[in-house]
Structures are given as C-alpha cells and as structure tokens.
C-alpha cells in the first residue's frame, strides 16, 4: 500500500469487499446492513480525500502503465458515485424497510449493487480508455441482473430491453474506441500505454481528423445510449420505473453522469484534433433532441417514476448542451450534474417510499400525499421544485449560468428554444406534482411517516441542494474551475 496506491485502494476495494461480505453474511441481520453502509462510507471518505489531493494540485496515478489516474473531473464523478452508493446502502432493500424483500433478494441486491458501484468507480478513475469502456459495459451487465429484483412481466421486459439496447449501444462505443486506437497506432506506433487518455490527448494534434470524426460518431452514439440521450433513450423510462427505487436512484442519479463523463473525455480529445465546432454541433443537436422529446413526453404521463425518468433525460440533454457552450457552459453543466445527482437520487428514494405506501405507481391514485406522509410529501415537493429549477435550490443557479453561457456564446436563438421546452416541462411537472400532493388521502392508505429515521438522509440531500443553490462551497467552485481547464477547450 504505497503512498500513491493508498487513495485508490481505499476508494475501489470497499465496494468489492462489501460484495463479498454480502455473499457471506446473513442478509436479514441489521449488522450486515451496518457493515455494508460503513464500507460505502469508507469509499465516500476516500473519494473526498482524492478531491482534497486533486485540489492540492496533484493528479494521483496508480497501477501498471499508470492504468488509474484521478484528475478534477474523475474526482468529482467519484464523489457523486460514492455519495449515491452510500445513500442506496443506507436506504436500499434490507431488513426493517416497509418493502419486504426476501433474504435472497436482499443478498442479491447488495452483492450486485456493490459490484455496480465498483464498476462505476473503476470507469471514472480509469486512465485507459479501453478499461473505461470495459467498466461501463460491466455496469450494464451488473445492474441488469438486479433490475428484475421482483420478477414480473413488466420488470423482465424492462431488464431485457435494458441489457439488449445497452450492450448493443456500448458495442458501438467500443468500435469508436478501436478506431481511435487504430488511428493512434498507424501514426504514432504500437505502445502499451497507447489507450491512455493522457497519451491520446498529448498526441492529439498528430491524429487524422476524418478518422477521429468517425470514431467520435460511434462513441457519441454508444455512450449516448448509456447516458440516455435521444433517440437512444427509449430503454431509460422502462428500466428506471421497473427497477427497485434504490437501483434506479443509482442509475438515474449517477450512471447517466458516468456515461456523460466518458463523452467529456473523448470530446476533449476530439476537440484538440478536429477543433471544437464538430463535436459541439453534435452535442447541441443530441442535447436539444433529448430536451425536446423529454419535455414533450412529460406533458401526458401517468406514472411518477416514469416522470422522474423523463426528467433525467431532460436534464442530461441540458448538461450535454452545456458542454458545447464554451468554458462557462462546461462550468454550468458540471454544476448541473452535481445538482441533478443529488436531486434525482433523493427523488427516486422518495418515490420508492411512496410506492411502498400507496402500492401503485399511478399518479392518479396517489393523492393527499402531504396528509399521508407529511415529511416525505414535503421533501418530494421540494425535490420536484428543485428539478423545476426554482430558486432556493441549486438547479436555478446552474440553469441560469447555463443560459448565461448560451447567450454569451451568441446562441440566443438556441437558448430561446431551450427556454420554451423548459417552460413546457415546468408546467407539466407542476401539474402532476399538484395532483399528488393535495386532495383527500385515500381511505385504504395508512397515515403516518413509517420509518422516520430513513427520511433523515433525504432531508440532508434537500439541505445540500439549498446550500448548492444559495452559496456554492468554495472547494466545489475550485474543483469546477479545474474541470473547465480540462474539458472546456
């Protein structure tokens, strides 16, 4: 455990150990749940340590041909992944929750959720582009296993679509990676560390523009599928609404961000080869399409989990567009990424609690939420208002900065279209929220908050959103500025 490998090991090992322990320990006991959560917290601590290291100017690397490397972007994503994993460890399936999973299901969930976290952490900290691809492909496989935790016609269908479209999409991304490698090998020659991102970036000026453009198209389609960008988004509403809420929180909250991370990595390379115009035009196109389709799909929606899934597509589209609006745009989209991760994971956990209590995912039959579960209802309303981009919460600030970047970049017309779609999404989301919150509580639903301490971490998330909205903490701004240097060509 040398000085350089310590941070990496404390980051990557805990999820693996958690997976192994989950296999061994009896799932029903509270102790195993506590151990699971402790390991997740350890990994979160390591991620924060990495951020500290990065802020001190270093970019720690580790492993043969420095396989793993953490710079500002990876550190940010690592913290997000660890944060959501801790939440799902605390609030995921386990003893004492209302949703009574069988011990086998709890064990299966814990094993694969930890593996899911591990693969995401590897994807984020891998310097080697190939290893990054392998890790992201592994995330698909591992998460697909626990989408149908409770086997039903709908969940099986959702999982099949998820794994098939996900794997096909990712395979195309690998075609792109191979093409990139091919171009590097033909011009610079075979080398062991050829697929390292830093090496690719260093030699970028030498590579051929047409080949790299072709590679970027495949990569954008491939990782775009994982990020849920339209038109490859079709699996997302099904998978996220059928999966157990802890898993869909991890997927919606941070898996989309990891896929976007991959796109950012490759955009940096392609931009230095081909110049920013080509990738920006593609990113804006896909981003706008996702925003449009998601906003319009929100208008007539019957289930609240699908509502949240479409809202993820909408925000991912916004982030994707932000990347193409110059350095301020990258700053805004990274801030938006953090806000979205916190808000969306909180919302999915809350929707899980609502589903447990009401038993039905239909918006129509969930009413009087404020009466039935005042705290959950309140937090659900707060989270939804955050997703709408209303002031005290962080999204207002990031969307405002994003629009400011758009106008500063001279894309006034584009920003007008974005504002229109945001308004459509705003009104429809608000309408659905009102139908759920108010009105008389249905007779057969039990009043009262149920497991009260489970709401505490979610209240913490809401508080974090307000802090991100009112006064973004200094280390966060420093980290974001560091990212802008990396990704904002």
């Amino acid at each position, binding site marked *: 455990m040398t000085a350089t490998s310590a941070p990496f090991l404390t980051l990557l090992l805990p999820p693996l150990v958690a997976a192994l322990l989950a296999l061994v320990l009896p799932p029903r006991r509270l102790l195993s749940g506590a151990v699971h959560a402790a390991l997740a917290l350890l990994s979160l601590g390591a991620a924060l340590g990495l951020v500290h290291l990065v802020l001190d100017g270093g970019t720690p690397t580790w492993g*043969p041909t420095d*396989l793993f490397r953490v710079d500002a972007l990876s550190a940010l994503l690592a913290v997000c992944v660890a944060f959501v994993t801790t939440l799902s460890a605390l609030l995921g399936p386990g003893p004492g929750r209302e949703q009574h999973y069988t011990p086998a299901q709890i064990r299966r969930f814990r094993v694969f959720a930890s593996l899911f976290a591990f693969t995401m952490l590897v994807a984020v900290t891998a310097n*080697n582009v*190939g*290893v990054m*691809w*392998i890790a992201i*492909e*592994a995330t*698909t*496989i591992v998460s*697909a*296993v626990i989408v*149908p935790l409770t*086997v*039903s*016609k*709908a969940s*099986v*269908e*959702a*999982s*099949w*679509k998820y*794994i*098939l479209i996900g*794997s*096909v999409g990712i*395979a*195309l991304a*690998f*075609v792109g990676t*191979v*093409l990139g*490698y*091919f*171009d590097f*090998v*033909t*011009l610079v020659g*075979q080398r*062991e560390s*050829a*697929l390292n991102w830093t090496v690719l970036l260093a030699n970028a000026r030498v590579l*051929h523009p*047409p*080949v790299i453009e*072709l590679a970027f198209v495949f990569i954008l389609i491939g990782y775009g599928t994982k990020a849920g960008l339209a038109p490859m988004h079709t699996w997302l*509403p*099904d998978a996220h*609404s*059928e999966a157990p809420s802890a898993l869909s929180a991890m997927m919606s909250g941070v898996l989309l961000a990891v896929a976007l991370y991959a796109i950012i990595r490759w955009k940096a390379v392609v931009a230095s080869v081909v110049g920013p115009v080509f990738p920006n035009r593609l990113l804006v196109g896909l981003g706008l399409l996702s925003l449009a389709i998601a906003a319009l*799909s929100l208008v*007539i929606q019957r289930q609240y989990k699908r509502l949240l899934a479409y809202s993820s597509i909408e925000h991912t589209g916004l982030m994707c567009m932000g990347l193409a609006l110059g350095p301020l745009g990258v700053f805004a989209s990274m801030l938006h990424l953090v806000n979205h991760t916190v808000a969306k994971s909180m919302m999915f956990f809350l929707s899980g609690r609502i589903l447990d209590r009401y038993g039905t995912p239909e918006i129509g039959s969930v009413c009087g939420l404020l009466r039935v579960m005042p705290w959950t209802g309140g937090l659900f309303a707060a989270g939804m208002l955050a997703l709408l981009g209303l002031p005290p919460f962080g999204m207002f600030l990031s969307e405002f900065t994003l629009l400011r970047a758009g106008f500063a970049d001279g894309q006034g017309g584009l920003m007008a279209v974005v504002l229109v779609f945001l308004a459509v999404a705003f009104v429809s989301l608000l309408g659905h929220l009102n139908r759920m919150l108010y009105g008389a509580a249905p007779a057969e639903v039990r009043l009262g908050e149920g497991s009260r301490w489970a709401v505490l971490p979610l209240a913490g998330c809401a508080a974090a959103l307000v802090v991100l909205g009112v006064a973004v903490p200094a280390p966060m701004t420093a980290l974001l500025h560091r990212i802008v240097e990396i990704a904002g060509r």
Partner: protein
Amino acid sequence: MSPEIVSQLSVGGSTLVLLGGLMMLWRRGVAAHIGAFTFQSVALAATMAMVGWFAGDWQLWAVAVLLLLVKGIGIPLLLKRMGRRFGSERELEPYVNTATSLLIGGLLVLLAYIVTAPLVSVSRLPTRTGMPLAIGLVFVSLFIIISRKKALTQVLGFLMLENGIALLAVLGTHGIPIIVEIGVFLDVALGFIVMQVFVYQIHETFESIDVEQLNRLRE
C-alpha cells in the same frame, strides 16, 4: 510470409467471417443459426492466428486459442442446450423476408465500404483491406438484432457484433493491449451468461421467447 499473401489471407478470412453473418440472415431455425455462429468464430480464430503468426506476436496466438475455446466450443454448447429447450418453437416470420434481408445485408456492406474509405487510406498495415468487411459485419449483425423476433436470435446477433469488432481490432491494429483484450473477452462472456439467464426468465414468464410480446411498457 510476404505482405501480399497476408493481405490475401486476411481478406479471405474476413470474407468467411462475414459469410457466417450472411448465413444467419439466410437460414431459419435455431440449429442453423448456431452452426453459422460456430463457423464464424472458427474463421475469426484462424484469421487471428494467421495475423499473429505474421506479426510474430505471441499474445495474438493466446487470444486466438482462447477465442476458439470460448466462442468456438463453449458458447455453442450452451446455445445448443438452449436450442433444445426452445428450439422446438418454429422461427416466426421475421419482419423482413429472406430475399430483402439479404439485399439489405449487401447494401450494409456497401455502406461499410464507403464509411471505412478514410480508414483504409490512412493505414499502412497489409491487413487493412479486410477492415471494410469487419465494419460490414458490424452493420449486418445490427440488422439481425433489429429484424429477428426471437430472443435467442438476438443474442446471437449481439455475439456476432462482438466478433465483428474483434475482427476490426485485429485487422486494424494487430491486436489491442492484452489487458483490454482480456477485459473485452470477460465482458462478452459475462454478457452472454446474463442474457442467457434472461432468456430463461422470459420463457418462464411469457411461455415463449418471442420478443414481440414484450410490449406492455408503452405510453
């Protein structure tokens, strides 16, 4: 082994691999599809061995052998077991009848040629001539996944897609770094196992593996 012979052999090998894909389009019935996939995997292993021998890179030999074991023998065995289980179901009429699907396969290969024109012009390796065929196989396998209605056939389409990419990697770069190669292999194997589990689950819940029935989640 002069470069001309190597390029001839690599074109020949990739043509055989592509033929495996087209056989999949042409024949119906699960057994025929599994046979086509096995043939394709063997051809791919042979091509990889040839390139390995030409480039004198022992790693390629090891990968070729591994590929032969897993994709040539292991996966077909599992597929046959699944075929016995669900093979009895008649292959439903695919979206596109055989003649048009072959025609489309041909068009896709042409598209691959146009798309990979810049690649071939850039590369100096003798094996570059086979790359368009590899991309062609990628497109054909995508078309297979879209047009076939059986879950099992879709899995086979996905495996062919992976074969296409492996072929592209070998022809274009004489083998990508070993760590990545092993990783890709693991992913494909794991992916196949999980998909296999799902096919069994679909069969349990839907009493057939016809993907048409999977349309309950819609707006």
